[in-house]
């Protein structure tokens, strides 16, 4: 949706708290909120404000999130600069990442999860991908009267929450390998009044498959794996014939836990087809314009597949 420049400014007291914290504690990010508000509009501001109100009601919660985001975002910027030099992600095995990141509760709670959650609003490509999810997937869930969905690799639980809040009749079951993610996603669903329709299990669906469902969500998991094709095969068997899945990944986007490098969306499409999916819709968005020629820019690529 285009931003209407005449749209009146909404009251966003919780977003204002977040912006004030950025200005006082992380001044290099002082324009992060106002810049995105101008670009993405008042619906963005209202959604972000509600997220902060429900998940970060106390000033200490906002302080933790801002500090975590600053670490998270600076780490990404540093890795992106190294990526420009090498053209590769810093090679690490899944076992190492799982130990250093997903099982590191202090890092997950204080940096990774709050950083990732704020990025859903502060990074325009993340926000636009979520809008595509709502329009291209959740609206179909609502129309079809979807009863249940799986979210494989819940992360912060942001996409589970969008599905639960959008489709009021649906129940969700999340899978993740990180207890920190399980707890964060559960808290998010409860904060949005959907705790009774949502559970998260510690489960690797490649090794422990679940019964297939009609609706499947898997956002930014593929790039965290050494072998996405094996994982996509497992995802395919979680989806009933005639079912629909939303699968998203990151391209040229170094992060502390990104292992598999996709350089373009065609590589993802090839793997999706190899796993037996048909692509119905797709969406790609860059993080922004390059600071100068030759500098890489991270990108998201999201697919609605059957």
């Amino acid at each position: 949706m285009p931003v209407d420049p005449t749209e009146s400014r909404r009251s966003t007291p919780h977003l204002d708290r977040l912006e004030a914290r950025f200005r006082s504690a992380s001044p290099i990010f002082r324009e992060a909120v106002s810049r995105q508000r101008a670009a993405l509009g008042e619906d963005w501001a209202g959604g972000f404000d509600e997220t902060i109100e429900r998940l970060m009601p106390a000033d200490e919660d906002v302080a933790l999130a801002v500090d975590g985001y600053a670490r998270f975002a600076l780490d990404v910027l540093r890795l992106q600069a190294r990526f420009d030099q090498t053209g590769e992600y810093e090679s690490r095995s899944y076992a190492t990442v799982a130990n250093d990141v997903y099982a590191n509760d202090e890092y997950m709670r204080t940096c990774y999860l709050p950083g990732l959650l704020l990025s859903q609003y502060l990074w325009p490509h993340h926000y636009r991908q979520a809008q595509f999810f709502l329009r291209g997937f959740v609206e179909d869930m609502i129309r079809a009267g979807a009863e249940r969905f799986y979210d494989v690799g819940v992360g912060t639980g942001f996409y589970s929450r969008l599905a639960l809040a959008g489709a009021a009749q649906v129940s969700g079951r999340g899978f993740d390998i990180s207890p920190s993610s399980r707890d964060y996603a559960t808290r998010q669903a409860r904060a949005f009044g959907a705790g009774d329709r949502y559970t998260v299990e510690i489960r690797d669906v490649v090794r422990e498959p679940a019964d297939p469902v009609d609706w499947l969500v898997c956002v930014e998991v593929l790039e965290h794996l050494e072998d996405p094709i094996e994982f996509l095969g497992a995802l395919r068997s979680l989806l009933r014939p005639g079912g629909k899945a939303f699968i998203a990944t990151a391209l040229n986007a170094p992060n502390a836990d990104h292992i598999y490098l996709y350089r373009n969306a065609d590589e993802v499409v090839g793997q999706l087809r190899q796993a037996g999916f048909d692509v119905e819709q797709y969406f790609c968005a860059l993080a922004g314009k390059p600071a100068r020629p030759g500098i890489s820019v991270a990108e998201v690529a999201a697919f609605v597949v059957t």
Partner: protein
Amino acid sequence: MLSEEKLRAVVASMLELDPSEVGPDTSTDTVDQWDSVRHMNLIIALEGAFDITIPDEDVANLTSYPIIKAVVEEQLASAG
């Protein structure tokens, strides 16, 4: 031994300032264009110019010229 002239030149270049403008009062409070991208470019430029590594836990805290100077001096000393 840290060359302050070199340090001021690096900071000035990355923050789009004249080297004569860089001094004890230079900080994120006084330089409007000091944003996250310029900040990380500055960190990388400092590491390259002085052949040091700035620890991840210090990166977010380098918000003024005096702090930058202290951290660069510390890293040069520890590099031996």
